[in-house]
C-alpha cells in the first residue's frame, strides 16, 4: 500500500446485498443462513459510498485519477449491490463469487475481502458501513483491518483526509472522540455522516459502461477449503424462530390509564 499525499485517492468501498429490512426476514430451514430472495444494497453501505464520493469529488473526481471501487463477495445477485454503487458514482466494481463461499463466517469473508483488496494493488482507504443489516456482528471490518495490517477507525460520524492522515469523529452516549491514523486505513461510517444521494438518469446510463471484474477464489489464490462452511471457525447448531409475542392486555385511557399502567408494572414486580 502506498503513502498518500494530497494527490489522487484510491478508495475501496465494501458493499453487501442484504434482505430488505422493511420486511420480515427469515433464515433458511436447512442451512441456517439468511434468505436473500428479497434483497437490496444494504442501506448502511449507502453512507460509505457517499463518503467515498465526497472525498474524491473534493479532489477533482475520477478525472483527476481518484477511484472508488465497489467490492462485494456473494452469489450472482450480489452484483446488484455493485451496480447500484456504480450508478451512484463509484468508478468500477469487483464481484467475488464462487460456489465454495456459501456459509462463510466473518473469518472467511474477511479472508476473501483481504485477498481481493490486495489484488487491486496499493489502496489508500477501505470504507465500510457501520454494520451489515443482516449479520449484525460488525466483525468483518476489524478482521479485514487485521488481515491487511491497517489501522481501523470505526463508527465515524465525520471523516476527513488530509496530507496522508485520516481523521474521524465518533460519538457515543457519553462522549465524542476525534480519532486519527496514517493512511492507508480502514474506516467504517455511521448513518450520521452524510445524506446519501439517489442515482440520477445520467449516473444510471454511465454505470452501464463501467467495468465489474468477476473473480473466483482461484483468481485470488485461495483454496475452497479456507472459506464457506468448511473453512468457517464457527457453526450454527440450531436456529429457532422467536415465538410470536402473545397478545397482551390493551386498554383505552379513561383518565386513569397511568395508574393502571403502574398496577401492571407492580404485578410484574417491575417497580
Amino acid at each position, binding site marked *: 500500500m502506498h503513502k498518500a499525499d494530497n494527490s489522487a485517492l484510491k478508495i475501496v468501498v465494501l458493499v453487501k446485498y442484504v434482505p430488505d429490512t422493511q420486511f420480515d426476514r427469515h433464515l433458511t430451514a436447512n442451512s441456517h443462513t439468511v434468505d436473500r430472495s428479497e434483497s437490496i444494497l444494504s442501506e448502511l453501505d449507502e453512507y460509505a459510498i457517499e463518503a467515498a464520493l465526497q472525498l474524491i469529488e473534493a479532489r477533482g473526481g475520477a478525472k483527476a485519477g481518484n477511484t472508488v471501487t465497489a467490492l462485494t463477495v456473494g452469489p450472482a445477485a450480489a452484483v446488484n449491490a455493485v451496480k447500484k454503487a456504480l450508478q451512484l458514482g463509484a468508478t468500477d466494481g469487483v464481484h467475488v463469487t464462487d460456489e465454495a463461499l456459501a456459509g462463510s463466517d466473518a473469518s472467511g469473508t474477511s479472508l476473501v475481502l483481504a485477498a481481493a483488496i490486495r489484488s487491486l494493488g496499493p489502496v489508500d482507504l477501505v470504507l465500510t458501513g457501520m454494520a451489515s443489516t443482516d449479520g449484525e456482528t460488525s466483525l468483518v471490518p476489524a478482521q479485514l*483491518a487485521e488481515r491487511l495490517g491497517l489501522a481501523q477507525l470505526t463508527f465515524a460520524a465525520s471523516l476527513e483526509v488530509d496530507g496522508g492522515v485520516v481523521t474521524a469523529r465518533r460519538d457515543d452516549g457519553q462522549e465524542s472522540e476525534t480519532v*486519527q491514523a496514517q493512511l492507508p486505513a480502514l474506516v467504517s461510517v455511521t448513518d450520521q455522516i452524510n445524506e446519501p444521494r439517489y442515482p440520477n438518469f445520467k449516473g444510471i446510463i454511465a454505470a452501464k459502461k463501467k467495468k465489474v471484474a468477476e473473480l473466483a477464489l482461484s483468481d485470488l489464490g485461495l483454496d475452497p477449503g479456507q472459506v464457506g462452511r468448511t473453512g468457517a471457525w464457527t457453526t450454527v447448531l440450531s436456529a429457532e424462530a422467536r415465538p410470536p409475542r402473545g397478545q397482551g392486555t390493551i*386498554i383505552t385511557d379513561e383518565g386513569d390509564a397511568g395508574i393502571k399502567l403502574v398496577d401492571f408494572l407492580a404485578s410484574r414486580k417491575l417497580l
Partner: protein
Amino acid sequence: MAGTAKILVFIDSPDGPLHKVQRELLTLAGTLGEPAAAVSSPPDEALLAELAGYGAATVYQPAAQLEDSLVAPNAAFLANVVREAAPAAVLLENSYEGKETAARLGIKLSSGVVTDAIAVAPDLSVTKSVLAGAYTVVAKVTTGTPLITVKANSIEAAAGTGTGMPVVVEVDPGEPGPAARVTERSAKPASGRPDLGEARVVVAGGRGVNGDFGPIEELADALGGAVGASRAATDAGWIDHSAQVGQTGKTVSPQLYISAGISGAIQQKAGMQTAQVIVAVNKDADSPVFEIADFGVVGDLFQVLPQAAGEIRKRKG
C-alpha cells in the same frame, strides 16, 4: 469442564471498581470454569481483591504500558495472554471495542468469534438472537479458542466466595501494528441516567412526542431507566442520535421497555423485541406496536406518562 479449565475475562481500562458488565462476565466465567482476568493496565489492591471475590485465581497484566491507541494494542496483548494462559474460552464485553478486539484477536489466534451472546452453556455453545431478535440461534466456535462477546444483563452478577489474592502474571504486550489514536475527547453533559445498552428499564419516545421528550424523561427517571428514541425522533433532532433504538441504532434487551408515541414499524421493533416486558402507549389503536405489547394503552402519552410517573413516585414514597 467446570472447575478445571480457565475462562479468561478481559477487563479493559480498569479505573476503580469493576463495572457491572465486567462483574457479569466474571460471574459467567465462574459457571463455566475457573475465572482468570486479563487487565489492560495494572490493577490496584482493591481491584485485585474484587477480582479475587469473583474467584479469579490468576490476573494477567501487561509487562509494559499498552500503547494509547484503539483496539489493536488490546488485541496484541490478549493474544499473548491466551498463548500464556491457554484458557478454554475468552469472554469480552459486547461493546464496539469489545467486539473489535475479539475480531482482531480471532485473526491473530485463528480462533472463531461469537458476538452478542445472551447465554453460554458449559460446553461453550452460545445462545444469541439474530435478525434483530426474529430468531434465536445456538452457535459454537469450532476452531481455536472460543472468543465470546457477551451482552449486558445476560446474567445476574454475583460475587463468589473467593478470598485468596490472585497471582499476578506479567505478559509481553506484543506488537500492535498500525492503529488509530484518540486525539481529542469531549464528554457530553452527563444525564445521570443508566447507559441505554445496559439499562434494565428503557422508556422510548417517537414521532408522537412531537418534539417534547419531557414526559419520556420524567417516567424514565421515576423508574431509574434510560431514555430511548425511534429514528423519526432522532432524525427530527428532538434528541441525540445515540438514543436511537432499532435497526440502525441500538438493540436493547431490558427487563422493561416502555414505548410511547412510536408506531412500531419493523425497523423499530427490531431493536427491542427481545425485551422481557413491553408496554406501549399510543393514540392510534391500530399501531403495530400493540401486536407485541404485553400491556398497551390507547391514549395520549402527555396524560398517561406523567400520571404513571407521579403514581410511581407516590408508591416509592
